[in-house]
């Protein structure tokens, strides 16, 4: 039987980096929602686009 072993490999680091990025994005959205005076739908769409594009760019850079 194959035993599961924690390796902490490159994939894990990428997963953790994604978690950190999403956490920062989540808190950043909370901040933007409190500071920027626009309707919530525009904020979700605009902020989502920025976070999404930036996420893809960063993912390609670190791959």
């Amino acid at each position, binding site marked *: 039987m194959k035993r599961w072993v*924690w*390796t*902490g490999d490159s994939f*894990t*680091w990428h997963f*953790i980096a994604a*978690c*950190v990025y999403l*956490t920062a994005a*989540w*808190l950043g959205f*909370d*901040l933007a929602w*409190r*500071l920027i005076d626009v309707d919530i739908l525009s904020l979700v769409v605009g902020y989502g686009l920025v976070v999404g594009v930036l996420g893809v760019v960063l993912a390609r850079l670190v791959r």
Partner: protein
Amino acid sequence: MSKKLLGQSLILVICLVLIGLQVARFPFPSPAIAPLLGPRDRWPTEMVMAFIESETPPKSFLEFFNRDPERTVPPGGNLVAPADGVIKRIVRRPEQTHFVVGLSFWDVHVVRTPVAGRVLKVEEEGVAIFRERSETDADAYLDGKLGPVQKVIWIETDDGLFKLRLITSWWASRLKVSAYPGKALAKGERVGRILLGSSVVVDTPPDVEFRLQAGERVIAGETIIAGDLP
């Protein structure tokens, strides 16, 4: 490998705690973003009301609330604002004018004398005294407050008698006056502090011409509210 596991787990736990704090504190700001917000967003009205009810405001809010910045008092025979806030109303009567400044939770709560003079007396008036009066007499500066409490500083000047009223609600009832009878006051000098909310009113002789209107913001000791006294 165990160090790596520990490090990776720690990062994930921090992320989870940050998200958890944000969700638990909603709609109030999470401690992670609060320092980046202005006072009104950092401590919204509902949050301040909860502080007051629980009587356990956090240290950061207390430090903010108790701030006492220096002010540059303009020279001349003008009148300066007695408190930071918004002018609620200017009520003119035959015998005197009431200049009413409303303070919000986020304003500096140090009260300054609008005019140089000598303190004649400091009166304390509670809810019972107000109830004995007619509404028309009281509502000029009470702005619909329930259970108002006030301290009135009588200031004698070369241009007549001025009264400075520090008003709060009975349940808050926290007024500190440092001025005392006989004390000579320089214009803009600190005379007291309202420890919670409310209003500061200047009663002036009727012939004082105010430069500002209701709705404008004023800064205690700095904003000129009336030109040279007649």
